[in-house]
């Protein structure tokens, strides 16, 4: 079987699995990283939501062959390290508002929340109600109202200093957009 390598929670890992093995099984069954939960395996419930290069994705829906050696995959276990603290500000907000009930969907909720805030910041705006409406992480306990509150609280807590190094990366992205939009104007 081919060896696949990528960066998982800041550390390089190599796994010997078939090309079509979905990343979720690589994380859970091969590497023993259980934060991303197996809810549906169909990219619907979002319980496995993790980050690839800072963007939210569902590992259940990505074959390992799609992952490059330079890809940085972050699961809930590696989230605090991205801010160099014992807990990510979003996790702190989650605790403060006592969001969780059974907890099964919550790692995915938090990973989606962090990515949502980063995405909004890349667009130089705050998370809107429309953004929150677009979240698709399923919660069987119905913690949605607290999830929404916590995302806004977490957004306020997320360090702005950390944004600056991210901005130069984010800035070039908005630039091509005007270029793309420019042909539309005339």
């Amino acid at each position, binding site marked *: *079987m081919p060896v696949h390598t990528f960066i998982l929670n800041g550390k390089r890992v190599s796994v010997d699995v*078939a*090309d*079509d*093995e*979905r*990343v*979720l*099984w*690589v994380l*859970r*069954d*091969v590497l*023993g990283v*259980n*934060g*991303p*939960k*197996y*809810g549906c*395996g*169909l*990219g619907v*419930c979002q*319980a496995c939501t993790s980050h*690839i290069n800072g*963007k*939210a*994705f*569902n*590992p*259940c*829906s*990505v*074959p390992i*062959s*799609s992952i*490059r050696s330079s890809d940085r995959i972050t*699961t*809930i*276990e590696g989230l*605090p390290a991205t801010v160099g603290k014992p*807990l990510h500000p979003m*996790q702190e907000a*989650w*605790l403060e508002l*006592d969001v*969780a*009930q*059974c*907890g*099964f*969907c*919550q*790692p995915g909720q*938090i990973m989606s929340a962090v990515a949502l805030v980063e995405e909004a910041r890349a667009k130089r705006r705050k998370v809107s109600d429309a953004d929150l409406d677009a979240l698709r992480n*399923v*919660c*069987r*306990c119905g913690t949605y109202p607290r999830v929404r509150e916590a995302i806004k609280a977490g957004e306020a807590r997320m360090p702005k200093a950390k944004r600056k190094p991210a901005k130069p990366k984010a800035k070039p992205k908005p630039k091509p957009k005007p270029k793309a939009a420019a042909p539309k104007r005339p």
Partner: protein
Amino acid sequence: MSANEETQMTDLEHRRPGGAGEPGAESPVDPDGATGITRRRLMGYLLAAPTLVAAARWDTEEATAAVPTVQLTNTLDLSDVLTAAALPTASLISVTVNPDGTVSFALPRAEVGQGITTAVAMTIADEMDVPLDKVKITLADARPELLFNQFTGGSNTMHSIFTPVRMAAATARGQLMRAAADELSVSTWDLRLREGVFSTADGRTATFGSLAEKAAVSRTVAVTPRLKTQHSIVGTDQRRIDAQDIVTGRKIFAMDLDVAGALPTMVCRPPTINGRALGVDNAAEVLAMPGITDVAIIPHSQQVPGGVAVRGKTFGQCVEAVRALKVRWGGSSVSGKSDASVLADLRKAQLPFTPPLPGKTIDETFTFHFRPGDPLETNCAVADVRKDRAEIWSCLKSPILAKQLEVIVMPPTTDTPGGAGEFGVAASMAAVACAYGRATGRPPTSFPINHGGELGFEPFATVPPIPASPVDGLAKAGVKRPKKKRARKAPSKKKKAPSRRRAQAKTAD
């Protein structure tokens, strides 16, 4: 807090607890106001152990009955019945004070998000005047001796367990106070208790931890503790005690358990109700698939939702194997029926309504199709089945029921996982895992596929047993991948790609 503890102690070594003529039984606590249950008296017990262990017991008039006779006039609702059913074994749950100053309690219920571990921790912290974070709640192993006292349901946990837990905690507090008085050479009247520390007027202190072993008893003793009259933590807003584990992804669910030798296992369920697997046409072929170690038929019964199980190194491999299975199904109890025919039968069976009453009437018919409620967590149980015993790891709301379902539940298990979304894991999952273990001699992780199947209901329509996991996750996430680079890393797709082009070319020709 009041330092006065009115207690009476009795040597019970050769006597039945709560027996007639016992001092403890003569001066019972009767917390009727808390539970609404009458004719029962609550006793505290100190249990013989290396460290302080305290329990409570409902002393009932029919104390020897395994299940109390509950007069319907005394019961208000399901919860009262469940509470009454839990009474006879309430003495078997106990609070332990540890030398490190923590207080531990193994809750004989399933925590599936209701927050009962937090509520019980609050109850104990309140009654013992110990900080909430010093109370450690675990989930108890299956304990058949608890009978109906290990059933999670009917929104009954706090109803049934609140007072016994308080009694056990109050018994422990009283004994700690006696030990502290002895240790500090003062009367219990001269002690103050705050945050798990006893202190005297002249500033000397004794902690719960330092007293844990000193307060232990070598013979089981009955006491009559006094419950606190004012709550300091109960009724206040507290966060879940498992919140930290949840937000960091450390909370363990059944599927996260790492049991030596256990591998992912999935069950291909029949496409019809009560269908049974007659045979597998391509068992050898499926067994040869990557990672697959076993293919086994699980006989279907009323208790065990059977099918064909596959065991592999990853769930992904199991998904592929289940999809590849060619199973001959038979024995459905609904052959020839459909949603429409069932609905028609129901309409025929419907009793005619009473004649219209005077005035305006509205006559409408509404059809509600059955929808099983499922947790988000995939149902899962790990079973280690041996010739003479079996061990199950799962989040079962009725482990005793699991036992009735031909599952042998043997303590001790080290990790009792939490469960998700109200339902916990259906007991039949443990049965499936056990049946699989018997069929293959393997300790599997059992994961039945059809949501709802574990409740005994399945869709009528014949559907593919399980869809393949998607492959477009990166595109959906907005991660762009140039096709050339992707092709380099996926040689198998590279091979397929030209063939598709050729096929297209041929059709174009």
